[in-house]
């Protein structure tokens, strides 16, 4: 039976109202971001793929960009690396080999290079209003070493092994760090300048300590909002699970008032949507974009994508304890089967650059002449396999994380190109945690992924991927070649300055030995996956590839 005319009119009116509402909603300004207004803004919207769930670094390292950015923003360290210009870059980068005061007013080193004395800024207050003292520094390191979850003893070994003796408060504003060998000094300073060197407000945290939880670690984890225990530029204002985190400027920040007063960190799981939000002006900063999206954004005048060197390496790790990679010649053959340039061009769309070694080539006294020159050369790979008497194709399984689209694509490109070099590559995609645990247990033949050193110190970087039992050593390289490598490392650590003329060539020599072993094949360095609105200024490429929001301003002229 047809509806009565009155009902039909009502239905039509309802549809019209809903349609008008939808149009009005679509046209409305969200109001959070003022991109494009030209005036300076004090609020920015950051769109992120994940959300921080743990800002207590000593409880445990939690992967994910948001965890690290939020934690970095809450905390500050005694020293930091200054920002400098880099040739060919459109943003500043961190100077990896010098340090400037941060929470410390200054620091000095004893003539024998073993005692580092930090003089703290006086009258500096935490987010909770408590003054920074030497006791905060000592208590912070006691806390770091009290819990295995954060892995701090590992990061600081072998520089710091006995906190009670090595980290001492001389007076209210002076603290000393003492090390056994002067060669450890540069790595110690590097660690103190990263988030593993964060200093906490011990007065505040002690109020929440109990006999069972003497360093208030569990208390801190019990609620994200308990995380405001530092001296960093921003503090948590609100946390809405799986939606957004709002951070507000710390009024007591060491370098005074901040231009950005409020930072809204909104969760947008899909990378393409994040890119679209940036284009539309709904976001000021988009994190973890895909290289292809960044390449597409390059022609958009309203979007700025930083281009600078990076310490994020893309590498293949070969298990030297499992066939076929227990044979060095097979490993070297695979190094000639990797299409380095194709991965950079077609997978990363120019957001990476070919870089077939581990150490920073700008470090003092660096010498790359020790390195074998690996290029995509299938004929040479086949010749090496034939020379070793290996029957082709050599089959192996390459494991990659199912959460890294670029690495997955690189694996496909490698598998296709390596066919011509005599390799049959089977790709196995697993969750990141499984890749890590299987890798450490020696169950993987080969894996591909990205990684970086927390501290860009040559001995730290080299030991990171080679140290027996180390958390990033999935190649298990050992034997006479490794012993010779370890001997060179020992000589470097015994020198007075880790980046001096005596140690520098030794690190290069050690790196050459590592490259010759082909236990790790370094493919490329991957640039920052971030893009910003063109009127967001101050981005600098940090070593940890996170954004220093204290340096950011928004509004006014556009970046080009």
């Amino acid at each position, binding site marked *: 039976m047809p509806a009565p005319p009155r009902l039909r009119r009502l239905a039509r009116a309802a549809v019209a109202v809903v349609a008008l509402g939808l149009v009005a909603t679509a046209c409305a300004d969200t109001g959070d971001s003022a991109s494009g207004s030209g005036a300076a803004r004090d609020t920015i919207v950051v769109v992120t793929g994940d959300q921080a769930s743990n800002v207590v670094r000593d409880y445990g390292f939690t992967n994910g960009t948001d965890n690290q950015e939020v934690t970095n923003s809450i905390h500050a360290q005694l020293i930091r690396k200054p920002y400098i210009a880099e040739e060919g870059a459109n943003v500043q980068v961190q100077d990896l080999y010098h340090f400037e005061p941060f929470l410390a007013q200054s620091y000095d080193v004893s003539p024998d290079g073993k005692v580092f004395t930090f003089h703290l800024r006086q009258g500096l207050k935490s987010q909770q209003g408590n003054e920074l003292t030497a006791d905060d520094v000592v208590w912070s390191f006691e806390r770091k070493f009290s819990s295995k979850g954060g892995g701090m003893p590992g990061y600081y070994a072998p520089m710091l092994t006995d906190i009670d003796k090595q980290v001492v408060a001389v007076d209210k504003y002076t603290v000393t760090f003492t090390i056994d060998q002067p060669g450890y000094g540069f790595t110690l300073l590097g660690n103190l300048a990263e988030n593993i060197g964060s200093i906490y407000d011990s007065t505040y945290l002690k109020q929440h300590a109990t006999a069972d939880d003497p360093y208030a670690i569990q208390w801190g984890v019990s609620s994200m909002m308990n995380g405001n225990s530092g001296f960093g530029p921003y503090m948590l204002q609100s946390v809405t699970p799986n939606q957004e985190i709002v951070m507000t400027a710390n009024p007591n920040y060491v370098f005074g008032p901040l231009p950005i007063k409020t930072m809204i960190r909104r969760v947008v799981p899909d990378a393409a949507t994040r890119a679209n939000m940036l284009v539309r002006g709904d976001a000021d900063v988009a994190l973890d974009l*895909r290289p292809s999206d960044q390449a*597409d954004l390059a022609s958009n005048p309203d979007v700025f994508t930083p281009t600078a060197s990076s310490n994020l390496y893309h590498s293949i790790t070969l298990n030297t304890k499992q066939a076929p990679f227990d044979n060095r010649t097979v490993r070297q053959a695979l190094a000639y089967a990797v299409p380095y340039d194709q991965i950079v061009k077609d997978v990363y769309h120019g957001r990476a650059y070919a870089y077939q070694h581990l150490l920073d080539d700008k470090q003092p006294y660096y010498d790359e002449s020790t390195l074998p020159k690996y290029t995509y050369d299938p004929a040479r790979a086949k010749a090496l396999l034939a020379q070793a008497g290996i029957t082709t194709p050599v089959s192996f399984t390459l494991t990659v994380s199912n959460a890294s689209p670029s690495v997955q694509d690189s694996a496909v490109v490698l598998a296709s*190109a390596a066919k011509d070099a005599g390799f049959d590559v089977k790709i196995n995609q697993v969750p990141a945690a499984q890749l890590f645990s299987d890798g450490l247990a020696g169950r993987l033949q080969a894996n591909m992924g990205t990684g970086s050193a927390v501290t860009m110190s040559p001995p730290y970087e080299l030991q990171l991927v080679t140290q027996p039992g180390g958390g990033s050593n999935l190649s298990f390289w050992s034997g006479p070649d490794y012993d010779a490598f370890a001997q060179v490392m020992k000589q470097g650590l015994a020198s007075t300055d880790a980046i001096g003329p005596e140690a520098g060539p030794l690190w290069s020599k050690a790196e050459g030995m590592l490259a010759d072993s082909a236990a790790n094949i370094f493919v490329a360095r991957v640039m920052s996956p971030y893009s910003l609105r063109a009127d967001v200024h101050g981005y600098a490429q940090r070593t940890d590839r996170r954004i220093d929001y204290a340096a950011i301003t928004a509004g006014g002229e556009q970046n080009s």
Partner: protein
Amino acid sequence: MTSTLPPPAAPTDTPAPPTAARRPRPRLGVGTWIAAALLGLVLLVAVIGPLIAPHDPTGVVGLPSRPPSGEHWGGTDSTGMDVFSRTLAGTRIDVAIAVFSTLLATALGIVVGLAVGMNESRRGPVGMAARGLSRLLDLLQAIPVVIIGLVVVSFFGTSTVTMILAIAVILMPIQARLTRTEVLRVRGDAYLDAARQAGQHELRVIVKHVLPNSVRPALLNVSVILGISIVLTAALGFLGVGLPPPTPEWGSMIAHGAGDAAVGKWWSAGFPAAALCITVASASVLTHRFTVNRVG
């Protein structure tokens, strides 16, 4: 001289098994013919697809993320693999997994359904086991199918065989319950008692009399199961637990291309999605035509 007695003949008054009354065959509409043609095309491509693919479906054959062109009819994906060739080659994999998992699920389902239906009212351990199995089927059907698939694949790894097993495990309870229901309906019929009284072994009674009269719903349901199976294969691939790359499989191709589709590069997800839609829709139309209409 010895003589052999002939086997006892079945009583002449044994009631004949019921047969479905013949109805006039309904006319097939245009939609049915189109669906049949499309499904036939899909099956043909499943057989010859890899042979007619213009490029190597597992190799990088061009620049990445290129739109459809004369060289690459379906464009290229983010690694430079030919989307059209991969969609063609993926037909064989998806259809093969669907067909074999459907056959396995149906065979297992019929056996389990017969065993449960014939024994669940018995006393003793056999009856208890049958009733336990019946509740297990209920339980399996209560768990979301994708969850079961994820668990099976997580335990046994990803390969064509494990995918077939996983999907068969997921779908078997449907067929088992259909068969069981029919078995419960026929197991008290007089012709079964007559066969038993004639000396036939219980297994022979089940195979010769119960099976033919209880298997029809499960067989009619095969086309439904086939459609579900294709969707499940794609769903597991979409969730990242399907066959490893660069194996061409529709679900993983859609998952891989979904991000690109959001920024206008529709082709790497669009072609496998279209293939999936055509296959499932065709199977669905034919199922509806030959089962639902007939019942009605």
